[in-house]
Structures are given as C-alpha cells and as structure tokens.
C-alpha cells in the first residue's frame, strides 16, 4: 500500500470505528463500511486536514470508495 493509502485507511478506521481489514481500497463507504452522508462529510474534512488538500463538494460527491479517496488525494497532491 502507498503511504497515502495507509494514511487514508487509518483515518477511515478512526472515524467509522470499523476493523482495518475491512477498509480495502475497493470498500464502499456507504455499502461496506456503514457510513452515512454526514460521516462522509466528516471523512472528507479529515482527509483535507491530514493531506493539506481541498476537496470541493462536486469532487467529494464522486468519492464512493476508499480507493476513490486515495486516488483523488494522490492526483491532487501531484
């Protein structure tokens, strides 16, 4: 796992209170990890904080899986 992917996984585990082995790159926040729309807002804020990036609302809406988040952050950070 890339450094970004590891840090994303850690944030998801902390915020959603799920086991880390469930937080795969393919895992869907809502369908697999039990998140609701507010949890996703909170996660996006935590990613912004951790990685010093800005995730606009329209981009946040497209983030459905852990992998989507990792990819967006890696691309934004260049």
């Amino acid at each position, binding site marked *: 796992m890339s450094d970004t992917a590891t840090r994303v996984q850690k944030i998801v585990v902390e*915020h*959603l*209170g799920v086991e880390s082995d469930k937080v795969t790159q393919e895992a869907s926040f809502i369908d697999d990890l039990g998140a609701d729309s*507010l949890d996703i*807002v*909170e996660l996006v*804020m935590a990613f912004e904080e951790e990685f010093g990036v800005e995730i606009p609302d329209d981009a946040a809406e497209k983030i459905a899986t852990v992998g989507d988040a990792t990819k967006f952050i890696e691309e934004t950070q260049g």
Partner: protein
Amino acid sequence: MRRVVVTGLGLVTPLGGDVETSWKNLIAGESGAGPITRFEPEGQKCTIACEVKGKDHPWGFDPDKRVDGKIQRQVDPFIVYGIDAAGQALEDAGLLDLSDEEKERVGCSIGAGIGGLPGIEKESINLHERGPGRVSPHFVHGRLINLVTGQVQIKYGFMGPNHAVVTACSTGAHSIGDAARMIAMDDADIMVAGGAESTINPLGIAGFAQARALNTSFNDRPTEASRPYDKDREGFVMGEGAGVVILEEYEHAKARGAKIYAEVTGYGLSGDAYHVTAPHPEGKGAELAMRMALKKAGLGPGDIDYVNAHGTSTMADTIELAAVKRVLGEGLGGASMSSTKSAIGHLLGGAGAVEAVFCILAMRDQIVPPTLNLHNPDEGTEGIDLVPHKAKKREVKAVLNNSFGFGGTNASIIMQKVD
C-alpha cells in the same frame, strides 16, 4: 385515569456511574465536589464543580459500556450520560426484548436545561479560527436537547412519543411529570423519562458565575461549598450527569410481573411571573406547584414523609422552605426534608430526574439522604428535620420532589410506595 408506576432506574452522577454506587455514596455522606479538571479554570471566579468521574475512578463512569464510540465522538457529554442512564433503566426494568408492536407504545421524554454548551463553545472558536468549512457536520444534532430522546429511540427502536422538555432546572421533574401524563392519557404504555446535563466548560462556569448563581469563596474547600440552608451558603456548585426512570402503566407492569418501585401520584406545575433568575420572594409559585401535586395525589399535609428540596445552596433555599412550611405545616407535618445537591451539586436539567431516583430509593430502603455541610442553620429552619450530615432511617411511604428554574418555572412531583 390510567395509573403510572416506576419500573426501572438509571443514574450517572458525580457520586457514581450507576444507581447503586451513586446511592451508596450519597447515603454514606460522600461529596462529589472537587477542583475542575475538565478544563483549566484559571481566571474563573469559581474553580470547583461536581464532575462525573472517569472510568479509572472507583465511582467512575465508563461510557463504553452502553454508548457506541462513534456516537461518543459526535455528541456532547450530556447525550452520552443520557443514553447510558436510559440503558441502565431499561435493563433494570427488563425491557430489552420487546416486539416491534410493543415498541410502538414506548416513548421517551428526556430533556436538558441547556444542552450542548461545551460543543457550542468549541465549534464557535473553531468557526472563528478556521472558518465555516471546518465546522463539524455533527455539530447541530450533537448538541440539540432532544437528541438524548432521539438517540435512545433510534438505539432501541422505540416509536412512541418523542418528547424533550426544556425548562431550565425544572426540566427533569417536568420530563417525568409530562411523561406520566402521556401514559395516563393512553399515548404510550411505557415512557423512558428523565433529564441530563453537562455544562462544566469555560462558558458555562463563567456564565453562571456572572449571573451570581455560583459559589466563589470555597475554591480551596470544594466539598464544603454546597451547603443548603447554612448561613454561609453563597451559591450553587455545578454538577453534571443524568437520571432516567422507566414509567409504565400499572396493569401493563403487573401483567408482565415487573418490579414496581413506586407510583407517580401527584404532579404540579406553575410559574412565578416575577423575575428571570430570582424566585418570587414569598415562594408563591413553589407553593402553587406543591399544592397542585398534593391535590392530584389526594394527600393531606401530614401524608408526606420525605421532601427532596430544590435547595441549591443559594438565598432561595429559605424561600422554598417557607413555602413548604405553608403547604405541609410548621413542622412539615413530620416529614424530613434534605437537599442532595449538598453532595452532587446542581445538575440543572438533570437535577429533578436524579433526585426523583433518590426519592424512590429512599422509599425502597426506608432511609433519607443527608444535607451535607449544614453547620449553622439559617433562620427559619428551627424545628425542621433537614437531615444534617448523616442519612437517617425512617418510614418513607410518600415523597415530594421540588424543582424550580430560571424563568420562574416550578414543578413538584409526588411518588408513593405501592403495597
């Protein structure tokens, strides 16, 4: 009218994270007061409070027992205390295995006086320092007063009345009284009722100190600060926690063989129509509430055995006492009267509910809890049994619980032992 009984109890107090620990310490004459540890109180006029202790303390509260970790992070402490106390009460009443149909007849009425002030303070600072985009998406529903009720109904699947009272320091008593009426009026068969509060934060302490409601001279002697009826009293000590009771329609409780602690027989409500913070100097509103409760219970002045006073350790203590004398008689008709705020401080919106639980336990164990620190009783207390210093064994068959709040709001509840 349908009869309403109490079949379960739950407490989170500065004296314990559960009912029996809180009660045992209360009867032993322990004080829950100490220096504020929740934040650095330097610069505050009052630096002491009755805090709920952490899980490493022998009287401590362990939030992990009944409240999901994710919820703990999202909500203010009063909601955590309320969810836990409700869970304790439901477990005590044996109501964890209800059918979906039965759950439609279970409601909640758990209020708070102020609600999530610590979270409001924190997020306000966050907003000003870091901007609106950093405000938590859980900010609003994690601070709202009706979210103890909301969380409890979601957790247990209850679909009956979803109610939350906000009447300052009368909240706990109104919550129980209103809920009892919902059962009497056939809106529900079971109500999870009570109050919760946690405002030991810089803004809460400063606000009450500026309103001249808190003690400020006992910072070096925290356990002596709450001293209802004592000449040297000079303001309340802030407490926190939650009290919840399970109210149930009498026949419903009997049919399932539930343990019945007491019956709620009287409820009186009134307003002072006088001042925003000071009570009516003649205690007229308090008197009206007590008289209404007695009338509803069909009791006379000599029928009350124990009065759990509002008694906050302010000048208002003797105003309440004079009103109780007018209602029950000069010697209170043989009743003992104490203020348990001397031990746990003032739980504001949680006070009336926690004190209702203490009243019920007084009837269960036939013992009345003490008024601590009553060394120099004020004028007007002569000939009254204020249960100074030590708990007292006595017959307790009927109790009167008073709660009064800012805005001139008054509530009195009468409960009786069921034979």
